């Protein structure tokens, strides 16, 4: 599928762990300021694919890549990964706030970039916490340990932390899978708000979540040699009501896990 206003794109992108091919020839375009969901059975490389966009796969030794991955038409691999991560933020599956205060957690990104002015940091922190819809719950306790918050609050704190860096893209790796249903709903509502300013890619194993919460959906599948590949990609309503590929239809209707 071809789109206007593409933020991220991959062309014939493959990834190998040593000799093992984890992703094969992925061609995809991620539209700007929209939510793209990545679905597929476990082990098909969804998280690995997501981590491509902020080069977190670099942390694993023996990783090799092929093909092109671009952001705003600039190759991701030719950028400094640290700089890339200023534009592409990430929220992890399990909330991972640092063992520091709430304020210090959110201020971490800006501080790393050299922001020293206390007033400026305070403003960034408030803005980010509001953006993650958690300001009202923590505004009186900014100096308390982030670990004292509930799971859902911690995850929204992690989102605030990512927002503080002022990225263009937010990658979310099953952000609500470790949370209860009420917290999950809050996160989904938050994502709807965020898409106005950010491009969001969310990996989820929960198809109902993908159907409810995303604008576009990409369906990945595992081939016989266990390499992941992109089966189909398009507007969410179209994928779920009228999929082009038979495998897609079988997956969506639950005929296999």
């Amino acid at each position, binding site marked *: 599928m071809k789109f206007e206003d593409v933020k991220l794109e991959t062309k014939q992108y493959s990834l190998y762990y040593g000799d093992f091919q984890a992703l094969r020839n992925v061609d995809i375009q991620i539209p700007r300021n929209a939510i793209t969901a990545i679905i597929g059975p476990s082990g098909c490389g969804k998280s690995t694919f997501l981590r491509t966009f*902020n080069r*977190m796969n670099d*942390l694993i*030794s023996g990783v090799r890549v092929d093909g092109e991955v671009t952001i705003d038409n600039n190759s991701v691999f030719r950028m400094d990964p*640290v*700089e890339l*991560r*200023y534009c592409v*933020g*990430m929220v*992890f599956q*399990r909330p*991972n*706030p*640092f*063992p*520091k205060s709430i304020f210090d957690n959110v201020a*971490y*990104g800006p*501080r*790393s*970039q050299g922001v020293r002015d206390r007033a400026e940091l305070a403003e960034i922190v408030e803005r980010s916490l509001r953006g993650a819809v958690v300001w009202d719950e923590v505004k009186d306790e900014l100096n308390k340990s982030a670990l004292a918050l509930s799971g859902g609050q911690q995850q929204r704190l*992690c989102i605030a*932390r*990512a927002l503080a*860096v002022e990225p263009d893209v937010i990658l979310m790796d099953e952000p609500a899978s470790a949370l209860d249903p009420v917290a999950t709903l809050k996160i989904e509502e938050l994502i709807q708000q965020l898409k106005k300013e950010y491009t969001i890619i969310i990996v989820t194993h929960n198809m109902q979540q993908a159907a409810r919460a995303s604008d576009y959906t990409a369906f990945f599948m595992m081939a016989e040699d266990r390499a992941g590949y992109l089966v189909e990609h398009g507007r969410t309503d179209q994928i779920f009501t009228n999929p082009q590929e038979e495998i897609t239809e079988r997956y969506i209707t639950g005929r296999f896990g």
Partner: protein
Amino acid sequence: MRKMVDAGVRYVLFLSALASVFIVFLILLFTLREALPAFREIGLVPILTGTVWRPQQDQLGILSMVAGSILVTLGSVLLGVPLAMGGAIFLAEVAPPVVREVVRPAVELLAGIPSVVYGLFGMVVLVPAVRNTFSVPGNSGFNLLSASIVLAVMVLPTITNIAEDAIRAVPRDYKEGSLALGATRWQTIVRVTLPAARSGIIAAIILGVGRALGETMAMIMVIGNSIRMPGPLDSNPLTLFLSQARTLTGNIAVEIKYATGFHEDALFATGVVLFVLIMVVNGSARLLIQRGGRK
């Protein structure tokens, strides 16, 4: 029949387990028994604060030895901790696997070298070097500096190993979270990993201190063993480290073989002071390790 054997075996095993406690008990008993006359005759406080050590004349001040032990331990910490921490961070975060395979065994081997060999090396290589480098009158090379250097090398493996383990134990989540926010690897180490490993690192240092306080033979060979209170050799206060000294451990080892009667009791008293000191140090390290684990 089988049940009887089983019960008997259980009893024997239980007794073996009790052996350790029994030994600790015996150690405390005998050391205290020998030390008591000295404590009773002179008193704990005068012993700890007196600066004159002449046991044959009933003068039992061990302050000079306490100072010696503390100064040499301090010196070894100042010299050894930066190097040990650098090594620990290097092994845990920076070294490629191939390099780690070389450096880590090297550090472990350093731990296995007998203390006399370190003492010998110190005597033959370090002492003359220190004497020639700092030509201050009164500097024989046998001094706190040489001893600190030797001791720093001896505690290096202890601190490095435990600190490295503490740093490795920091959850990957934290590191990934930091990197994903655009921090560099070094920033991640300084602002997230090391603070998170803080209690383990402090425990490593404290255990190193305990080890330093307990070292005997290598110290005797390079520290000079003078019974005078260590002090600066000239107007420069740093020459304190060029002064001879004697450690609590050295005090015991040097005199025990020819000491009799009251003198002998006095050495046991030194032993008791040393024992308490090290137990306190080790105990606090253990508490810190536990507290760190509970997070």
